[in-house]
């Protein structure tokens, strides 16, 4: 009996769901890959008061982003996103905090 993961390989899933981005490990021109870019609204508090802020994460297949590190870049819809930290690494996918 086959399972879902076998029927839907990660590369196919990302091809289907991912946005078109350019990945630049260190210097241009970079490579075109698929990755999921998520814009999430959060609040930054200073005691009682807060400012809303857009937090951006990029989820990519680890194999698509060799050498990714703090300072690597993605270009998504003409906007350059710079990697700040690896939030999740399950050895297949990476979730990256960018700004």
């Amino acid at each position, binding site marked *: 009996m086959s399972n879902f993961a076998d029927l839907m390989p990660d590369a196919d899933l990302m091809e289907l769901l991912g946005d078109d981005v350019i990945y630049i490990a260190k210097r241009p021109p970079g490579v075109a890959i698929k990755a999921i870019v998520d814009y999430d609204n959060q609040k*930054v*508090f*200073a005691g009682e008061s807060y*400012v809303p802020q*857009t937090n951006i994460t990029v989820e990519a297949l680890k194999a698509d982003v060799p050498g990714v590190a703090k300072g690597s870049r993605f270009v998504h819809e003409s906007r350059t996103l710079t990697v700040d*930290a690896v939030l999740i690494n399950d050895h297949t996918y990476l979730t990256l*905090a960018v*700004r």
Partner: protein
Amino acid sequence: MADTIRERIIQAFVQRAAKLTNVPVKRVERSTAESKQRFVSVWDLADQDAGSAFGQDKRQFGMGLEVIWQQTATNPSIEANALMGEITTVMIGSTTDKTFGGLVNSIRLTSSSPNYPDDGSNAITLTVIFTINYTTLAGDPYTAPAY
């Protein structure tokens, strides 16, 4: 009705804090729109008894000065420490009127608490608490004693 001494102190404090930003200082307002401008919000805290003298009520309250801004190129700790110095200078510096127009007996900077950006964020926050002592005529919160 006239403003209480406490209210007049808060107004003077807010007015002075305006020097810290080029957008209006908020008073007990929790939020502003996402912005690159330095956001300053002032919070007056609990008022409590601080003793008495003949015909006078001595009182004390805290004033919170909350600031949120976007990190520029430098280290966030350096920026926060620079702002701590700026706040001290602007609010209670050696050339300022620490009586706020004869209303305040003493003002102390009690604490400065910076918080640094999360991963993927540029937002730095700083919460500064001042402790203010003031005096009114006994049972008359609208009138400061004449010295």
